[in-house]
């Protein structure tokens, strides 16, 4: 039985590496930088990848502890089967998201999976106190963070756009001036994209949270935890460089007409949001924030918004948590009924 546990710990670590690779592979942060054509494409990927790696290794502690320990209350501690159920469920939902072409939140699916697994755990262990299953203050701050962060992104983008329009854009007369200003914004965009990449790595707690949970549950020691962090950072880099290039190239090609100033406004707002929530240990969906920033930019410019597409996206966002919870719960129940737990 102990051999099986060790094997599952190894499987969990490998799944965490796979998850980290797919986080990098799905990260579209450097796309606006690639679209400007200021730097060579591989240089853009290296900048984005480096940001992710630095964030994952050095700034992800708070978010990792939320995922790996603080989210749960005193009644429940992670077991390796719980973690395995969570990871399988989260990965399945991530794959569904990739095929559907909708920017689904891996963060929401992860916490949905944890929620479902813990509820199932309580159901199969009737003696436990349900009130202590979750850290309610952490849970409430998470839910508030998920709802507030996109709205903050929206309003902050509108405000920032208005300010930039008044200070710079409204004063432009001809294309010569526009070109000169956009060249400056290209450089500012480079810095903003790097900052967002760093905090995307820091805020993506899915993989690092699993390693943290293993460390918190004494399945691995402190050295192993740090070694795992470094490897996760490298896998995120490789994910972006190998798999993410297609997503980024695709997005960059579709947005060749996008202005560096637009990209800068969106990236700066995303950076501000991530910069605030990450030290608080609140993992959020940065793709949700980006989508609301884009809507905010269109609203600021008084341009049309695709409400039909937005409605479809909103439906998937609402469904992510319950579906992931059911999937996670069923997987854990499957382990339980097969006598593995």
């Amino acid at each position, binding site marked *: 039985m102990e051999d099986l546990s060790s094997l599952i710990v190894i499987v969990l670590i490998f799944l965490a590496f796979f998850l980290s690779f797919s986080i990098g592979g799905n990260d579209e942060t450097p796309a606006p930088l690639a679209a400007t054509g200021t730097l060579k494409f591989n240089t853009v990927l290296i900048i984005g990848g480096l940001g992710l790696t630095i964030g994952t290794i050095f700034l992800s502690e708070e978010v990792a502890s939320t995922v790996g320990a603080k989210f749960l209350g005193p009644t429940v501690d992670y077991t390796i089967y719980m973690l395995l159920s969570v990871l399988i469920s989260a990965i399945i939902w991530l794959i569904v998201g990739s095929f559907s072409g909708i920017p689904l939140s891996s963060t929401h699916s992860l916490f949905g999976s944890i929620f479902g697994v813990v509820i199932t755990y309580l159901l199969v262990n009737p003696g436990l106190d349900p009130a202590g299953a979750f850290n309610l203050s952490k849970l409430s701050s998470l839910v508030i963070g998920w709802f507030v962060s996109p709205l903050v992104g929206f309003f902050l983008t509108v405000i920032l756009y208005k300010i930039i*329009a008044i200070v710079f854009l409204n004063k432009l007369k*001809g294309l010569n001036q*526009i070109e000169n200003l956009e060249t400056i914004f290209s450089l500012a965009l480079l810095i903003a994209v790097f900052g967002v990449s760093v905090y995307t790595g820091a805020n993506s707690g899915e993989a690092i949270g699993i390693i943290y949970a293993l460390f918190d549950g004494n399945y691995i020691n402190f050295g192993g935890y740090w070694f795992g962090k470094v490897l996760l950072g490298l896998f995120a880099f490789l994910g972006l460089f190998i798999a993410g290039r297609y997503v980024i190239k695709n997005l960059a090609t579709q947005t060749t007409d996008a202005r560096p100033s637009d990209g800068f406004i969106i990236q700066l707002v995303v950076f501000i949001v991530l910069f605030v929530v990450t030290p608080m240990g609140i993992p959020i969906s940065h793709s949700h924030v980006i989508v609301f920033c884009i809507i905010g930019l269109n609203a600021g410019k008084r341009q049309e918004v695709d409400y039909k597409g937005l409605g479809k996206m909103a439906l998937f966002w609402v469904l992510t948590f319950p579906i992931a919870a059911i999937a996670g719960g069923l997987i854990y129940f499957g382990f339980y009924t097969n006598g593995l737990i």
Partner: protein
Amino acid sequence: MKEREINNIHKLSIDDLTNEFMDNINEQNIMLIEGIEHLIEEDFENFNKNLNIVIETRTEVEIKKTFEAKLFKSKKAAFTKADRLKLFAKINDLKNIGEFMANKMLLYKVVFPDDQFKTRIRSIIKSLKDISNKISEAVKSIGPDLEHAHKICEEVKEERRKMRKKEWDLLNRLWNYDMDYLSRTFLYLKEFIEDIMMMADHIKNFAEYIQFLTTKYLIFK
């Protein structure tokens, strides 16, 4: 017509090449319009001279080649390569229409039916000269002042509307001359008027394209 050394052309920036090309083509249009004035005055020698200059292609091809080579090598900028290329193509179309008109007009030495007809032709080519100069100014205003370019294009469109009325007056007059068979003069003059309007229509479309660009790039106004 303005002549530049080939080496100088290679030193010009993409914007300068566009402006240089526009200048050349506008000068060609003016040469064509002056040629028509010589035709009205039945000064066939100068008419031939002017129109042969219009047909002659000198620095234009070199400017076009240099522009395309520089554009494809250039870094992406706010004013997209696709928009620059289309703008350049629209200028080039002006040249093609001018050449087509010149070749066609040289086929036959027409004598205008009466002074009334001559006066009306003078009026329509004066408008053509006006919108040709204005479109050239609009192209050169894209860099320094998009709103100014937009305003000039509005004037071009307005002038072209007036030209349409002049065209119907001329055609009406032409169809009612006492020519009971399909004469060469009739055919020549009918197509001559239509070709002038073809050039005017292209300039109007060009003006609309410039207005599209100003709307696209001045989104925050």
